[in-house]
C-alpha cells in the first residue's frame, strides 16, 4: 500500500485514496463542511480534520470500513458518505486481519558506514556517556545531584564524553525480592551499564534495599573496576558524602572515557530500536513506510532493528506470525502474545479493542488500523528472533523484543538490550528523548514538523504531497540515521530530553 501519486495530482487533491476498494479517503489537509471533492464525487457534510478520514460511500451498520484494501473494522451504525469517520463508530469485534504475505526484496547492500566508538567486546557505540545508576529509588536524589554537577563547563576538558547522565527509577525496594520482577529490573539496569554507548558507570545504593547491591552485581556478573564503581550511602555516611564519593568516581573515569575515539565502522553495528510515538492518521502512510525502507536497508547491511510494542503486534498478529524466520520463532512470538492477552484481560486498555482517545483525536479509526500502520515501520524482513524485555539483542536482522506499547518503558527495554540508536515516528509530535542511545524523531506530516521543529528531526510530509517517493524518503531516513549515529546531535539531545524517560517495566506488585 505505498502511495504513488503524480506530483500534479497530489498537490491539487485534498484527499488521499489508498485503494480502489476503500470506502474512506484520508484528508491530507483540513476539509471544510460543504467542500466538494470531485475526485470522489462527495461533498463533506462536516469539517474533517487533517489526517482524519472522510467516508466516500455509505457504510451501513455492520459492514466493513475498508482502507488500503483491508477492513479496519465494522460500522456500529449507518455512516453516510460525506461524514468524517469517527473511531467511536467503528468496532473491531470479530474483525480479523487477513494473512498479509510480505515479499521481502532485500535491497542491494551498499557499503554503508558510520563513525562509532568500538568497545572492548566488539560492539560499537554511537555516543560516549558516563552513567550514574541506582539499584533502588532511595539512591535517586544522590544520583541526580552527582550527575547534575557535570554541566557543559565542567565537561569542556573532556570533549569526547557526551555527558554524565543519571538513570533513576521508582522501584528497587518494596517489591518482590525474587522472581521475574526483580530479574527484569536487574537485567534492565545492567543492560544500560553494558550498553556500548555507556563508557563508565557509578552505581548508587542506599545499602538496605531489596535490590541488594551485592546480589545485583553477582546476578548480572558485573565486577567493580575501572569503568564500574559503586557507592553505598549508608556506608559513606549519608547523602552528601555519597554525592561527593560518586563525583570522585566519575572524575576518575572521565579521562578514560575521553580517550575513546570514533572510527569508521560498517552499518552492521547499528542496533536500531523502532518506535511509534503519538501516531496519527498519516503515520502509516508516510513515516512508517519510510522507516520500514530504512530498516530494510539496515538489515541488508547486516545491521539489527528491534521491533517491540507487543500490544500493537497482538492486534495485527497474523501479519507478523506469517513472517517469522522459523516455526520456533513463531511459537515464541505466539507465547508472548498469549501472555499479553492474559495480562490485559478485563482491563480498560487498547488491547481489548477500544482506541485511546488521543489516537482517535489524531485520526486513527480503530486499534486495527493503528496496528497495521505500526507494522509498516518494520519493513519487510522476517523476524529472526523473539526476546524477553531487556534481554541482550544479538541479531543480526529484524528481531522482536516484548515490551508494552508505552514509549518510555519500551525504549528502556530496547536500550537495555543493546540498542545504540532509536527511531521514533510521530504523527502529533512528541518531546520524548532517550539516553544513552538517542531518539531520532520522524514526523508523519509537515504541519507537525513545523509546529515542533525544535523537537523533531525529520519530516516525511513530502511523501503525502507526492513530492518525494516513499523509497526516496526511506533512503533519506537511513542516511540521517547514519549521520546521527556518527555524532550529529538529535533535536532531543539538543533540547535536553532523555533524563526522565528511564522506566524499567514495573511488572509485579509492590509490597
Amino acid at each position, binding site marked *: 500500500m505505498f502511495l504513488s501519486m503524480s506530483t500534479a495530482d497530489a498537490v491539487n487533491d485534498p484527499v488521499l485514496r489508498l485503494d480502489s476498494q476503500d470506502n474512506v479517503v484520508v484528508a491530507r489537509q483540513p476539509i471544510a463542511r460543504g467542500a466538494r471533492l470531485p475526485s470522489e464525487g462527495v461533498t463533506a457534510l462536516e469539517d474533517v480534520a487533517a489526517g482524519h478520514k472522510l467516508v466516500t460511500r455509505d457504510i451501513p451498520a455492520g459492514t466493513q470500513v475498508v482502507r488500503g484494501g483491508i477492513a479496519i473494522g465494522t460500522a456500529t451504525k449507518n455512516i453516510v458518505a460525506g461524514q468524517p469517520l469517527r473511531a467511536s463508530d467503528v468496532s473491531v469485534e470479530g474483525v480479523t486481519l487477513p494473512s498479509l504475505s510480505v515479499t521481502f526484496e532485500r535491497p542491494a547492500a551498499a557499503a554503508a558506514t558510520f563513525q562509532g566508538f568500538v568497545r572492548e567486546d566488539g560492539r560499537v557505540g554511537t555516543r560516549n556517556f558516563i552513567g550514574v545508576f541506582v539499584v533502588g529509588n532511595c539512591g535517586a536524589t544522590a544520583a541526580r545531584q552527582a550527575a547534575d554537577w557535570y554541566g557543559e563547563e565542567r565537561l569542556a576538558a573532556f570533549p569526547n564524553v557526551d555527558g554524565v547522565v543519571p538513570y533513576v527509577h521508582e522501584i528497587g525496594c518494596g517489591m518482590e525480592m525474587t522472581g521475574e520482577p526483580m530479574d527484569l529490573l536487574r537485567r534492565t539496569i545492567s543492560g544500560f551499564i553494558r550498553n556500548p554507548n555507556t563508557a563508565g558507570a557509578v552505581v548508587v545504593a542506599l545499602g538496605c534495599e531489596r535490590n*541488594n547491591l551485592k546480589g545485583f552485581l553477582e546476578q548480572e556478573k558485573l565486577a567493580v573496576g575501572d569503568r564500574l564503581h559503586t557507592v553505598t550511602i549508608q556506608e559513606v555516611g549519608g547523602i552528601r558524602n555519597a554525592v561527593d564519593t560518586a563525583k570522585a568516581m566519575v572524575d576518575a573515569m572521565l579521562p578514560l572515557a575521553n580517550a575513546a575515539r570514533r572510527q569508521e565502522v560498517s552499518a552492521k553495528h547499528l542496533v536500531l530500536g523502532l518506535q511509534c510515538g503519538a501516531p496519527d492518521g498519516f503515520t502509516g502512510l508516510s513515516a512508517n513506510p519510510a522507516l520500514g525502507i530504512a530498516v530494510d536497508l539496515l538489515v541488508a547491511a547486516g545491521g539489527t532493528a528491534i521491533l517491540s510494542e507487543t500490544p500493537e503486534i497482538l492486534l495485527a498478529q497474523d501479519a507478523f506470525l506469517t513472517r517469522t524466520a522459523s516455526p520456533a520463532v513463531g511459537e515464541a512470538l505466539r507465547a508472548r502474545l498469549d501472555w499479553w492477552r492474559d495480562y490485559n484481560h478485563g482491563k480498560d486498555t487498547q488491547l481489548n479493542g477500544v482506541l485511546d482517545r488521543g489516537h482517535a483525536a489524531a485520526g486513527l479509526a480503530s486499534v486495527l488500523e493503528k496496528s497495521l500502520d505500526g507494522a509498516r515501520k518494520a519493513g519487510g524482513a522476517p523476524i529472526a528472533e523473539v526476546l524477553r524485555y531487556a534481554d541482550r539483542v544479538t541479531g543480526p536482522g529484524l528481531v522482536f523484543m516484548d515490551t508494552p506499547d508505552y514509549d518510555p518503558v519500551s525504549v528502556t527495554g530496547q536500550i537495555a538490550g543493546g540498542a545504540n540508536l532509536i527511531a521514533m515516528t510521530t504523527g502529533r509530535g512528541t518531546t520524548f528523548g532517550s539516553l544513552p542511545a538517542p531518539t531520532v524523531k520522524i514526523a508523519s506530516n509537515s504541519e507537525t514538523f513545523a509546529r515542533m521543529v525544535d523537537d523533531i528531526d525529520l519530516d516525511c510530509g513530502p511523501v503525502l504531497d507526492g513530492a518525494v517517493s516513499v523509497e526516496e524518503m526511506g533512503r533519506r531516513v537511513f542516511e540521517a540515521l547514519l549521520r546521527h549515529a556518527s555524532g550529529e546531535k538529535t533535536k532531543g539531545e539538543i533540547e*535536553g530530553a532523555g533524563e526522565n524517560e528511564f522506566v524499567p517495566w514495573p511488572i509485579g506488585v509492590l*509490597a
Partner: protein
Amino acid sequence: MNDQITRANFNPFIRLDPLDNVVIARMPVQAGTPVPSESTVTLHDVPSGHKIAAHFIAKGEAVRKYNTVIGYASEDLQPGTWMHSHNILFDEVEKDYAFSKNYVPTEYVPQAERATFQGIRRADGRVGTRNYVGVFVLGNTGGTAARKIAAWFTPDRLAGHPMVDGVAPFIHQMGDGMERSGEPMALLRRTLGGYIRNPNTAASLIIATGMESNDLEDFLAEQGLQRGPTLRTLVIGDEGGLRRSIEAGIAQVKEMLPAANAVTREPVSAEYLTIGMQCGGSDGFSGLSANPALGAAMDILVRHGGTPILSETSEIFGVEHTLTARAVTPEVGQKLVDRMNWWLAYNEGRDCQINGRVSPGNNAGGLANVLEKSLGGAKKGGNSPLMEVYRYAEPVTQRGLVFMDTPGYDPASATGQIAGGANMVMFTTGRGSCFGSLPAPTIKLASNTPMYERMVSDMDINCGIVIDGEATVQEMGQLIFEQLLRHASGERTKSELSGMGTNEFVPWPIGVLA
C-alpha cells in the same frame, strides 16, 4: 570490644517484657559473654539488634517478644543461643480482632491550652507548614519540561518572594500506556489532586502533553479543580515543543509567585498537624526506641487534636488486632481487616514480605521475619484509638489516629499520605534511610546512636538515647513532639537541607501497562 561490657552491672541485652523468652543485644556481643540478668552466657556471637534465647525454648514453642508471638522455634534451643530467621519459623498466627473492646475515647487537652506552631492558614481552613509552588505532570513525557521549569527558580531568583519555599517538580512514570479507567487511573488522579490541594502547596502548574490517557480536562473536572491565580495549566503540544513549553511554564510560575508569596506564619494550634508516619530501613532497634517514642509523641499530638496517619499495610501484618481492638467502631476495625485481606491476595504467591521474608537490610539489622518487623512497626501508632481507615490518597478528614492503606514501600506510602493531606512526615530508621519528601518535609528519627552519628547530616532526631539508657520512651516522645513543632514552624529538616524530595514522588503503580 566495648569497655562497658566488662562492667559487672552493665547489661548488653534489653528485656522488653517479663513474659518474653528472648532479649535483644544493644551492641555486638561476643560468644561466651555472661548475661547475668538472664543467668546465662551467650553461645554465639550476636550482632547488634539481634536476639538470644533467654531460657530454654523447645522445638515448636512460641518465641515471644513484647509478649507477642513472632514465630516458633525450629528446634530445641539452649539459653544464650543466637536467634534469628534460621531458627525462628514464621507461621500463621491466630487472630482475635476483639473489635473496639479496648476503645477508650481520647482525653483532649482543652483548646486554649493546646501546643502551637507557626503555620500558614489557607482559605479552606487547613494549615500549611511549608509554602511550595508545585509543577505537576499528567504523564511521564511532561517530566523534562517540569524539571527544567522548576530548576530555573533558584534561591537567587526567588529572593524577591521570601515566603515561597521553592518551586518543586513532581515527576512520575505513569499517566499514559496504562488502564484508562478504573482504580489505576482514579488512584493516579486523586494522588495528583491531593498534592495540588495539600496545604503546603501554595500554587500549581500542571503540564500535559495533550495526548496522554490521563486527559487534562477530565482530570480537572474529576478532582474539582479550576484554573485560577494559583492553578495554571500548560499543554506541550499547543505550545509547540519543549523549549517553548519551558519558557511558557517559567512565565506562568512567575505570574503565580506574588499570590504564593502573600502569606504569613501565625501561631496555630497543633491540631492542624497531620503527620504521615513511616518506617524505613528498620533494624532490631527500631521497635525498641524510635517507633515507641514516635508513638508516644503521636499520643501527645492526638490529645492536642492532631492527626497521625499510620500506613504501610503489609507491615502491620500479624498485629492488626492491636489496632482493631482500639478502633472507635467495629466498622472501622473491619475496614482494616478488609484491607489486610486484600493485601494477602495481592501479594499471594510472590516473594513479598507479607509472606515472611523481609529485606536483606531488615534481616541484617536483626528482624527475623515480617511478624517481628510488624510488631516493632506498629509501635509508631502509640496507644490512641483508631478513628478511621482510608484508601490510598483519599482525603484525610477525621481527627485523631487514622490508618491509610498503602504499600510498605516508603516513597509510594509517603506519597499517598501527602496526597491525603499530611503536612509533615515522620520517618523512623535503624539502618539509615535518607528519605525526604515535599511539599511536606520528612523528619528522620534514628533508632540507635552509632547510626545517628555516622549519618548525622541526614538524621534529625536521635532516639538511640533510649537504647543507651539516657531517656525513657515517654521522655523521648516529648522531645520528639517539641522538635516536630519547630520543624512545622519552618526550621529546616536535614532532608530539606540535602535537597531531597523531588525524586520520591511515587504514586502507587497499581494496574497493568499496555
